């Protein structure tokens, strides 16, 4: 069995002269919830976009469960469920149709497709909206539909960008429970969020990114040690200490 579910080597993405992700080497273990933390513009979304196939890397490589995201993109994508930060969906498809479209694209077996859609609609309390156009739903309900679409093909690797934004507390908790169950079943989750509280309660390991580079990586305790903050301090203290230190060292560069 592979050691890591997600593995990147020298992964780089440039937009013109701006380097958004600079030689990223990231390893995410199987069956873990790994968080990407970083200030605005650190390159977190670009990393997730590259892993999911939305954006093509400028340099380097990335593997999802052993499949190269560029050379074997279809195989890699089939194993991924990706939730972007602001997902746009087809407004004039009904909720059921949208889930059906996603399921078929991910080749969910025909026999189980309808049953699975029904199950997810029930779980996320969307059954009464199944014939409603996605465009007629509120922001929170739309987010629930997208969450369903991410999970419906039962991906083994889930990439989440600010996943709890727009969800009400009940839906947020339900989603977290779902994710935990998926991890127990062997799934892997890479989540990008600004909410440090979520990271502390929800994630096993954290990678701090700044200016497209890894600043530090490890468990919460390991990060606190690396940051040089006391054990009773919060992740916020460790995060600020690490990103500040990085900024200072950058400023010292000629």
């Amino acid at each position, binding site marked *: 069995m592979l050691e890591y579910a997600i593995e990147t080597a020298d992964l780089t993405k440039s*937009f013109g002269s701006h380097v958004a992700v600079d030689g990223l080497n990231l390893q995410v273990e199987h069956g873990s919830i790994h968080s990407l933390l970083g200030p605005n513009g650190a390159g977190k979304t*670009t990393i997730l976009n590259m892993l999911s196939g939305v954006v093509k890397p400028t340099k380097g490589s990335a593997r999802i469960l052993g499949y190269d995201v560029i050379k074997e993109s*279809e195989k890699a994508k089939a194993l991924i469920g990706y939730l972007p930060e602001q997902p746009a969906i087809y407004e004039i498809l009904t909720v059921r149709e949208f889930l059906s479209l*996603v399921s078929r694209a991910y080749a969910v077996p025909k026999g189980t497709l309808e049953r699975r859609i029904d199950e997810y609609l029930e779980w996320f309390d969307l059954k009464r909206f199944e014939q409603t156009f996605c465009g007629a739903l509120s922001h929170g309900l739309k987010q629930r539909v997208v969450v369903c679409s991410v999970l419906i093909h039962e991906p083994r690797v889930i990439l989440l960008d600010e996943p709890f934004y727009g969800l009400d507390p009940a839906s947020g908790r339900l989603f977290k429970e779902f994710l935990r169950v998926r991890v127990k079943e062997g799934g892997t989750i890479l989540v990008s969020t600004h909410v440090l509280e979520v990271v502390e309660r929800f994630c096993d390991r954290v990678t701090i990114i700044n200016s497209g580079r890894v600043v530090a990586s490890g468990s919460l305790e390991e990060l606190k040690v690396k940051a040089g903050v006391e054990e009773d301090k919060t992740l916020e203290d460790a995060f600020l200490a690490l990103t500040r230190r990085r900024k200072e060292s950058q400023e010292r560069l000629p």
Partner: protein
Amino acid sequence: MVEYELRMLISTLRLNIRKPTYILSHTALILTCLFIGYSFALAPEYFLLGGYPQVLDESEAIALDMLTMPLAFLLLYTVLQGLFDQGLRSYISQPDFSILVLTPVNSRCIVTAKCVRNLASRLFLVVLAFLVLTPISLKLSTPPFLLATAILSLTLYIEFLQAVSFAIRSISDAFRSKLSPRARKYVKIIALTLSVIVSLSIILSEYHAIEFWTRALTEGTEACWALLPSSLTASLVLGFMLGKAEAVYPSLPCLIGFLVGALAFMYAFSGPYHPEEFAPRPFTHGLRSPFGFRIGKFIEKCLNWEKHSLIIFLKDLQLSLRGALIDFSLLDFTLMYAVPLASWYLLESFMPVQTVPDLEAKLGPLRAFVKELVLLFALLPFIPSLTSFSREMGRIWLLKVFPIQNRAVAYGKFLFALTISTASLAPMVLVAVLVFQIPPSEWVICMILPLILLIANSFGVLVGAYLPPYDLGNHMSLKSIITFFVFLIIVLTPFTYIALVQDNVSRVILLALLALYSALSARFFLGQAGKGFEKLELREILPHKAETGDIEPDDELKENL
């Protein structure tokens, strides 16, 4: 507000002139206009009427008709665009409008300022008109006064077209906003019925001599025709070419009057708008299960969804069908074909084409082709393949994350574009064959249309994948100009040969060769389109960077700032 908008226009211009693509496209346009002008002036034998300019004196009426025709088409096109462009919304929905409308500035002022900016931005066309007309003026030795009048008349006409387009949009928006969903439904049904009646009556009148149109088109109609802005402009341009100053005095003030009238209408109906008017319309409860839903379900059951390209194709088809049934698209679509068909028929019946001596005889076997070509050109701006990927907007991420081959996505988009363009062109061609009474011997030429559609749509998908966002409305962009010229070279040029061949055997052989050419080209284009889609990034397809969620610094913008 006007000052602010004009400043914005100047800033945009300053930014644009630093872009090589902008310089290149405008230089190409200027050179083309100069070429046209010098061709007319120095090589008159290539002009349709031999013996130019003497023949103009001999048959002034014909020349006037020949000039009026394209200008009238331009007017018709503008009116249609104004009517069918979902009202003022599409024009005013600019990034800053939602901010501006919340300021204490009167909404009507904002609308007016936007329109003034748009009118000013079109002044480049005056330069183009100058470049075309000056060589002709030098050749004909016309007085500078008449040259100035001709340029002014063309400018006024273009400005009038702009203003009338906005006026129609304002009026139709004001009208539509008052309609209840039920009333909208009835309007759609009535308009569709009328379109069918018009099309049928055209066909019937051709075969059963109902003479409906002959009775309707009395002398009064012809007088109105002469007073249209297009006819006035044509008479002014002709006056310039013939060196006759007498046409200036009645026509020029009338043209100014039309422009002022259009501006007044635009102002009157622009009214106080609320940001809500320009936000995407929320779907109401009543639209939960429209007819399109049932069509979608039917398609879903009937066709195989397993194949990847079919998934993309059916998704696009379902969305288009449903979108058309929810808003006015289907109605627009139907009218867009019914009205030009009626106009084309009228043109055949009593307008300029008939008055050109022996035009039909001269065209010979080209007749069917020329007519089809006109239809095809009418369709060109609406080729759906060009916006295959741009239409996805922010939803492109979904296609990107699906475990589907990029080539399959391109094929799916192509299938959809082919279906839509075939479905929209086929009835038009069939009606045209009946109305224009094209003999069966010329039908073989009609076979080239499917081939043109095949190659045109695959090329469109390729362009759409490499040059997003593709804006069909922006005809002046480098993308549009390049697409058009490349399309002419690779798509239309090979097909013109078939029209020149006389015997049917050679035609069939050529058709087979063209079919092979089309199939190979389509395959190549779609393969490349798949690669283009692979490289396509979310930030490229969105018109506004802020929508990407992950705002990356735009280097060009940084440089400019």
